């Protein structure tokens, strides 16, 4: 396993380098930050001076060389917009995103697996129908709808929860609840589908013959066999959360990496864009590695 991890890390490093090259050059094709950063009526001297300070007047390849040179010393450069080291800005935001993503995905996984499995247990039954409709609506409803309605109802109307912000535990409830909805809907469906097939396999019969309880037939015998596509989709959803939940961050004033990245892209704050991509990419690589290890852990037949 250690060699696997080692090999994989090397491969991921190559991907990371590719990603950096790609992002570095492609993002520069999208325009010069000078005009965006400086006010419209800034003087020409200010513009020249700005380009000089941030090295924007050098040829791209020189800028890239400089960037990589700094990067190997773990210097991610200075954010133009925030006048701080880009990596500080990104890490600060990423901690929030990571927490949000982890908590949400943990809840989603548990809830979706339970609901999806139970739905698959009696296909076409009442629970299946109801949970099916609910999860499908959840997976396709615009999230800002739900967010705003939730604020209007639970914060303004009932006053149970704060509208937005980050201060206390209570502040986390609404954002997580809203974030929860889409992946929940999707994963319920995937679990259900996968479970329908596994629940009709022969080893489930064996378990029944052994007198195993229905609960553990579903959640122990069938579920583990059904998990392969499920954890893949969980991984995909987690990756999109790690890339930042823009709507949630915008509406609930959550200082995560999603909005940071969007603002930085729109403002052409390239150092921050790159730093956040590197950080999230590393997180995604690690997650994919964990998922691949999970495949092997779940199914001994694909260990080799």
């Amino acid at each position: 396993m250690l060699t696997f991890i080692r090999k994989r890390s090397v491969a991921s490093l190559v991907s990371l380098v590719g990603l950096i090259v790609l992002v570095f050059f492609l993002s520069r094709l999208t325009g010069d930050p000078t005009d965006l950063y400086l006010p419209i009526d800034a003087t020409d001297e200010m513009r020249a001076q700005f380009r000089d300070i941030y090295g924007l007047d050098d040829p791209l390849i020189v800028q890239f060389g400089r960037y990589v040179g700094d990067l190997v010393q773990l210097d991610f450069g200075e954010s133009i917009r925030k006048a701080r080291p880009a990596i500080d800005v990104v890490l600060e935001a990423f901690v929030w995103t990571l927490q949000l993503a982890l908590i949400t995905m943990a809840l989603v996984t548990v809830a979706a697996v339970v609901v999806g499995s139970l739905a698959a247990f009696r296909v076409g039954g009442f629970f299946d129908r109801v949970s099916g409709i609910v999860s499908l609506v959840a997976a396709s409803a615009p999230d800002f709808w739900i967010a705003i309605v939730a604020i209007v109802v639970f914060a303004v109307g009932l006053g149970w929860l704060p509208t937005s912000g980050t201060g206390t535990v209570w502040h986390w409830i609404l954002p997580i609840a809203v974030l929860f909805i889409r992946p929940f809907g999707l994963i319920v469906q995937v679990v259900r589908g996968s479970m329908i097939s596994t629940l009709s396999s022969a080893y489930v019969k064996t378990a029944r013959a052994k007198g195993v309880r229905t609960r553990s037939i579903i959640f122990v015998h069938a579920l583990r066999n059904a998990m392969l596509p499920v954890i893949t989709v969980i991984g995909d959803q987690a990756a999109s959360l790690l890339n930042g939940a823009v709507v949630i961050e915008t509406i609930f004033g959550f200082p995560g990496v999603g909005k940071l990245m969007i603002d930085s892209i729109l403002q052409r704050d390239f150092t921050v864009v790159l730093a956040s991509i590197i950080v999230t990419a590393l997180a995604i690589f690690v997650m994919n590695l964990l998922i691949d290890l999970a495949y092997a852990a779940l199914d001994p037949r694909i260990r080799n």
Partner: protein
Amino acid sequence: QDDKAVTIVLNEEVDVMEPCMATRSNIGRVILGNVNETLTELDVRGDQGLMPRLAESWEQMEDGSWRFNLRQGVTFSDGSTFDAQDVKHSFDRVFDPTITCESARYFGGMTVTATVVDDRTIDFVVDPVQPILPLLVSLITIVPAETPVEFVREPVGTGPYAVTEWSPGQQIVLTRRDDYWGEAPEVSQATYVVRTDPAVRAAMVEAGEADIAPTISQDDATNPATDFPYLNSETVYFRLDASQAPVSDLRVRQALNMAIDREAFIGTLVPQDALLATAIYPPTTQGWNADVPVPAYDPEGARALLEEARADGVAVDTPITIMARTANFPNVTEVMEAIQQMLQEAGFTVELQMVEVAEHEVYYSKPYPTDRGAYIIAAMHDNRMGDPSFSAYFKYHSEGRQSGIADPKVDDLITRASAATGEERNQLWSELQAYVHDELSADVLLFHMVGFARVAERIDWTPTIATNSQLQLSEIGFKQ
């Protein structure tokens, strides 16, 4: 004590809290006048014009330079005493080539030399001579002489408040200083939070989580007891590029102006309190010419003008693209769609493209793309400074960065007005406004926009034209 603390919910993240960037509205709203003060300040509540702040008085010398007499007994929040040296350092820092301070933009084409006369007196020599320097210095925040040249994260100032907490992305807390030189303000502590969604800002005040939301959306502004409209010094207009056919033809530009039913927007897509624009700056500006009429809505007339131009061989059927920035102002897409339809009804061939800020910028500022074709830029301009010079050069001078016209008379008027003082200055600006609007139809002016603030019932505060860029805590009182 605690009930004198307020929470203010802003719409834009505060990226840096650098005093020399205070002219940026997101930064200015927090620190300007609260943490950092300026030598002078513009009265936005009354009509006293320019008022003393850290300078007690000022005068123009024979040679055109300006002398400022500074206030005594002022201390910075770090304990040091305020004197002329601090002022000099503050100005030098703004113009230092190793950092890009936004305040410097107002001094384009000028060199400012500050000379300390004594502790309480400082001279400014400006080349060329600058008649409105006292107004300009209201943009330069004063920092201690010890401040390093690079950007700071903990601004120190002479204002009534000091920054006591800044957790980026979460909140900024300002706490009242006990040793402030002036009258102690009522608010003891202010917490700033940022929510980009307007509905959430409104909800926060409603739910009692915030006291002031300086900008909420027109749709949410439904409660007259808490929601106040204010002219926000922003003007929406179409910048025309007169170098491109068919917009280069005067008749086409006039037709564009006549084809838009501006009235129809008021109270529908644009707030009721918005004003129809006849200049690119708001009516509170010096030298405002009240005689310039709003172009009448006359689609037939526009059609006729177009036909006339067509007869003269102008390619009036060339498709014109309106480029507007997404989220530039509330309902921007709908307004653009409506205008597009109005123009089409008047016989124009118009396309609409909503673009993000960077692409907008490509067409908005010089150098313009060479293959730009016929296009119209929809934009919003902010001049809260009360003087047309902050707009005129950029927008209309042939060298202006965002100018779509090149007219010698305009250039001349701008140069003269900028150098003039007093009534003459007003006169020249008036003349420019009328000429650009009536004779040249240089652009299509639309609305002076209105913003809405939501203020909790316990708070005694109303927004002003400066609220967009500045929110002095000292102006906030408490009812009962």
